[in-house]
């Protein structure tokens, strides 16, 4: 059977599974809609968090980015996992104990201020929107390449599916579809990785294959040494050495870590478990499930890079396999025969180089490059869609709860009934899906890049406000508001300046302290922290009842009933 038929089978099967779960887990109350009734077991929540967290960027783009960045790609690996340590140790248990529905809920109540609540709503919505556009784009790429529909139709199909189960089931539907999506995506990521690892190194565990010797067919020697050798020979940067400045890597890693800990769609997952102990446990499970993919990704990156070079370098263009021309059709691989010899010169020097390979396609193209069976290729497609849709659903829920719960119920229309609030939540998901789809179709940058900016913004706005709210009893509303405003504005301005207003200036010479826009969120975090602490010193301390709440969330044992 062809790849195309297998793809239709896998995609249809996995989609009907998601829809089935959505129908089975319809939400009847706002508590079910916002936090799945607060009764999700920690193991299930760990899986759901992992799927929620691992987006199109993790599944489709990350290994590809690493295979082009080499050691510099480390900031994605450490940044997107190290943040869980912060989340588990500093945030998750306390926020669960505080016992609310959303992040703006916490900010608004802890800082006894509607202004703070609205700023948090604004930050949550902007971060989630930036992020969700990346997911829609990822789904679009997958559909257009493997189901041979055009990009726009691809995005529309993705929108329709997410819309269906998010609107019907809210957090409850999303949680259980995410559990299924985790299983699909991890299976789809691991199967080709194991296949390729066995083929290239004879090792079934890709993490070990990564440091093993290649088989005879691939020329022997350690994989990484071989890759370094090939890179050097062709004039690319040495794979296991860094190219970016140490301080830039340092700050990008920090921004991704703080951002991970501050992303509202991840934080709200910890509101869905029954108690504080389960919140800690599910953070542990989540990182274990994430680590399975994240320790495999760098191995996949190295395999894919070696394989790509072996296949295309100095090969005849006319002898290229079918996948090559299919990706050429999408414009994601381009070949320009500069010296008209019909042979592909794939080298580091841009003057002579004739081949351009889009980084986002490496994971998707990898099984085909390695000539794996058709069903494996199709499986990867289903996995990529699971990753994009699960994250999109989680983000859309944040947008909808921010609007229905924080903006309407808690601020502007406190008298609406539970049924009206639920209807508002559903309507706002509907609108959010439409807007996200529009920007998914019309967004400019690469998937992973778009997502990286969401992290900077989350890092600079939420992370300090929440941590200070728990660990600094003296922190008051003036400090928190000033901090969030400064952090968010500074980060957003820096990114917008270098990415939109003046992209020509986007190089290390013009950056502040040599920090790229991807890493500026960490400086924004520090600015937020300092401003908040300074302002809080000169303004009145928080009222007694708020201080009492903080003392309460620091006690052992279970939450105060909501």
């Amino acid at each position, binding site marked *: 059977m062809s790849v195309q038929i297998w793809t239709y089978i896998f995609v249809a099967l996995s989609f009907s599974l998601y829809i089935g779960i959505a129908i089975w887990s319809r939400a009847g109350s706002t508590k079910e809609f916002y936090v799945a009734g607060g009764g999700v077991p920690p193991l299930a929540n760990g899986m759901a968090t992992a799927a929620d967290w691992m987006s199109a960027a993790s599944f489709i783009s990350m290994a590809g980015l690493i295979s082009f960045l080499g050691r510099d790609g480390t900031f994605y690996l450490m940044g997107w996992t*190290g943040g869980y340590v912060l989340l588990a140790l500093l945030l998750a248990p306390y926020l669960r104990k505080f016992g609310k529905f959303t992040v703006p809920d916490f900010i608004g109540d802890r800082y006894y201020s509607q202004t703070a609540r609205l700023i948090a709503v604004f930050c949550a919505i902007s971060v989630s929107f930036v992020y969700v556009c990346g997911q829609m784009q990822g789904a679009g790429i997958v559909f257009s390449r493997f189901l041979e529909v055009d990009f726009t139709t691809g995005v529309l199909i993705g929108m329709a599916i997410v819309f269906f189960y998010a609107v019907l089931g809210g957090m409850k539907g999303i949680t259980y579809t995410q559990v299924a999506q985790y299983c699909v995506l991890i299976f789809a990521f691991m199967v080709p990785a194991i296949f390729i690892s066995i083929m290239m190194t004879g090792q079934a565990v890709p993490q070990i294959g990564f440091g093993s010797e290649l088989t005879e067919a691939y020329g022997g020697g350690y994989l990484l040494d071989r890759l370094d050798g090939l890179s050097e020979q062709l004039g690319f940067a040495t794979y296991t050495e860094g190219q970016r400045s140490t301080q830039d890597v340092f700050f990008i890693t920090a921004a991704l870590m703080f951002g991970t800990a501050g992303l509202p769609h991840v934080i709200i997952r910890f509101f869905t478990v029954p108690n504080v102990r389960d919140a*800690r446990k599910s953070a542990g499970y989540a990182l274990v499930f994430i680590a399975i993919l994240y320790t495999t990704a760098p191995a996949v990156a190295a395999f894919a890079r070696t394989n790509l070079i072996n296949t295309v370098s100095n090969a005849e263009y006319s002898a290229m396999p079918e996948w090559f021309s299919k990706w050429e059709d999408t414009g994601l691989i381009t070949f320009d025969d500069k010296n008209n010899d019909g042979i592909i010169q794939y080298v580091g020097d841009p003057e002579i180089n004739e081949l351009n390979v889009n980084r986002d396609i490496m994971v998707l193209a990898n099984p085909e490059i390695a000539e794996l069976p058709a069903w494996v290729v199709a499986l990867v497609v289903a996995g990529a869609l699971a990753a994009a849709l699960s994250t999109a659903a989680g983000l859309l829920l944040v947008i909808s709860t921010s609007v229905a719960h924080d903006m309407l119920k808690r601020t502007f229309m406190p008298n609406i009934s539970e049924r009206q609030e639920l209807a508002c939540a559903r309507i706002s998901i509907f609108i959010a899906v439409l807007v996200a789809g529009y920007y998914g179709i019309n967004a400019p940058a690469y998937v992973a890049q778009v997502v990286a900016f969401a992290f900077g913004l989350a890092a600079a706005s939420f992370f300090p406000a929440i941590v200070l709210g728990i660990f600094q009893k003296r922190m008051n509303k003036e400090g928190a508001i000033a901090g969030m405003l400064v952090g968010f504005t500074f980060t957003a301005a820096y990114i917008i300046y270098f990415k939109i207003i003046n992209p020509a200036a986007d190089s290390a010479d013009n950056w502040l302290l040599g920090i790229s826009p991807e890493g500026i969120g960490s400086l924004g975090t520090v600015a937020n922290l300092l401003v908040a602490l300074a302002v809080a010193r000169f303004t009145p301390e928080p009222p007694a009842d708020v201080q009492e709440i903080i003392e309460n969330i620091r006690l052992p044992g279970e939450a105060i009933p909501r």
Partner: protein
Amino acid sequence: MSDSSANSYWKANIRLVLSLLFVWFFISFGCGILFVDALDTVRFGGFKLGFWIAQQGSIFVFVALILIYIRAMDKLDAKYTLDSSSESDGASQEGS
């Protein structure tokens, strides 16, 4: 729970969190970024040590840190919940 035991519980908690975060920082930002080139001079199997910590080792350490935290907090909770139940015969049950 009495004020003083609440206080010592919180202090023990902070101590635990800070020591785990120290390891977190040392492995990721230290070994994975700042000293990575120095560590790269050491090799095991097909890996340079610094490169391996940056791309694999640090993630295993992160998982271990959270698992240690979960166990330590369970113990700490158990200890202080027992304390407060033994002393709280006549006293209030607040916070438990």
